[in-house]
């Protein structure tokens, strides 16, 4: 029963979106960590790396997108290629955003990140091929959405007035931490997917799972857009 599978997976995905502690998740860094960042003087490589990794592992919006991206990638070579493109994208805007002092509205950025989940899930169920009659360039899309994810990270880091002394070292450390967190999270997801692909009925599960991913993405978009319009 596809419907039952969809119901189960989307319950898990949406529960994550709704119930994940706000302090850990899409809206930034936990309070204790925030206090640490504000008292920071000079470069602090290890703590910033830790925070970057923590942000990546507990930030379900980035993870949902990456699950979508690697869902149908069978060869390790492709996984590395796509993840590298995503990394290049978000590193550019993370470094550029913080160093250039470019601020974007966090709600709108997070809405775009939510939309990236919808996009990838729709792509995974062949939505573009069947309805648009075309296949968008997957590499370009991953790079472009990577840029937005980096902007989201930059905006969150800028919520704390990081001291100018040691700023570059701190941002680079945060970025390196983000990559470490991403590798750790991806390894877990890949292992699970690899095992899953050997099971019967993967295609059926895949359709239901990507529909659930899309639901989670829509929920993220709705939540962030409501935040944009309802918060003063």
């Amino acid at each position, binding site marked *: 029963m596809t419907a039952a599978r969809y119901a189960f997976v989307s319950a898990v995905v949406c529960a994550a979106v709704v119930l994940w502690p706000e302090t850990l998740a899409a809206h930034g860094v936990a*309070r204790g960590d925030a206090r640490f960042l504000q008292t920071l003087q000079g470069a602090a490589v290890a703590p910033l790396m830790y925070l970057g990794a923590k942000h990546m592992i507990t930030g379900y919006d980035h993870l949902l997108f990456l699950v979508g991206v690697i869902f149908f990638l069978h060869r390790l070579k492709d996984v590395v290629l796509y993840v590298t493109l995503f990394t290049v994208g978000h590193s550019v805007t993370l470094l550029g955003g913080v160093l250039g002092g470019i601020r974007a509205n966090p709600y709108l950025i997070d809405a775009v990140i939510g939309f990236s989940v919808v996009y990838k899930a729709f792509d995974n169920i062949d939505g573009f091929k069947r309805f648009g009659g075309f296949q968008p360039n997957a590499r370009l899309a991953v790079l472009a959405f990577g840029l937005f994810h980096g902007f989201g990270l930059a905006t969150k880091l800028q919520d704390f007035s990081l001291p100018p002394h040691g700023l570059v070292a701190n941002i680079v450390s945060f970025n390196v931490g983000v990559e470490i967190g991403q590798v750790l999270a991806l390894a877990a997801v890949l292992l699970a997917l690899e095992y899953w692909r050997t099971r019967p009925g993967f295609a059926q599960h895949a359709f239901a799972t990507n*529909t659930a991913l*899309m639901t989670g*993405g829509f929920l993220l978009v709705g939540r962030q857009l*409501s935040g944009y319009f309802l918060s003063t």
Partner: protein
Amino acid sequence: MTPTRKQIAKATAVAIIVATVLLVTIVLPAEYGADPLGTGKALGLIDLFSAGAENPASPPPDEAVQPLPHVYRTESTSFTLRPSQAFEYKYRLEKDRGMVYAWKATARVKYEFHGEPDDHRLKVQSYEKQEHEFASGTLTAPFTGIHGWYWENPGDRDVTITLTTSGFYTAAEELRPTFDPIKHKNRIEHVPHELKVPAGFTDDKPIARR
């Protein structure tokens, strides 16, 4: 196995509908206090929002007590609002200084408890926005600036609001929209309120600590 157009359309529609239902019934009440279908109230989710809004900037427990060398003041005052009239009353508080407050109106009023930082990093931060006859609580100023209430009388009779506060504020002012006959438009008039220095304190002298 390639999905058909029908399957894809159905899946997308289901995703949108499920996401919208969850958003409207659960996320909006819990996160933003908006409750269009009343589900937030029925499930008690709206409490999540009001708990966060009343005291958004309470410091972590290890910082709960801070000796502050400042004058502690108490004030009780009242205002009368004509039908559809609105006005604001604000206290000047430095960052991390606290204030305890309670107010009561003779009828329902629309109100917003909010703060405006001096450095204009953001225009206004809302602490609580509702329609009610009374409210009370504790505020620890999240930034240096003016913190207080906007009140509006939505009814067709005069409403009197009685406000009692105490805390480490240094000044109080009333913001009343008045009509300027010369410029022929409305402007906001800032009327400072004189605050009494409590007996035993002289202004700007630290409180003696035991």
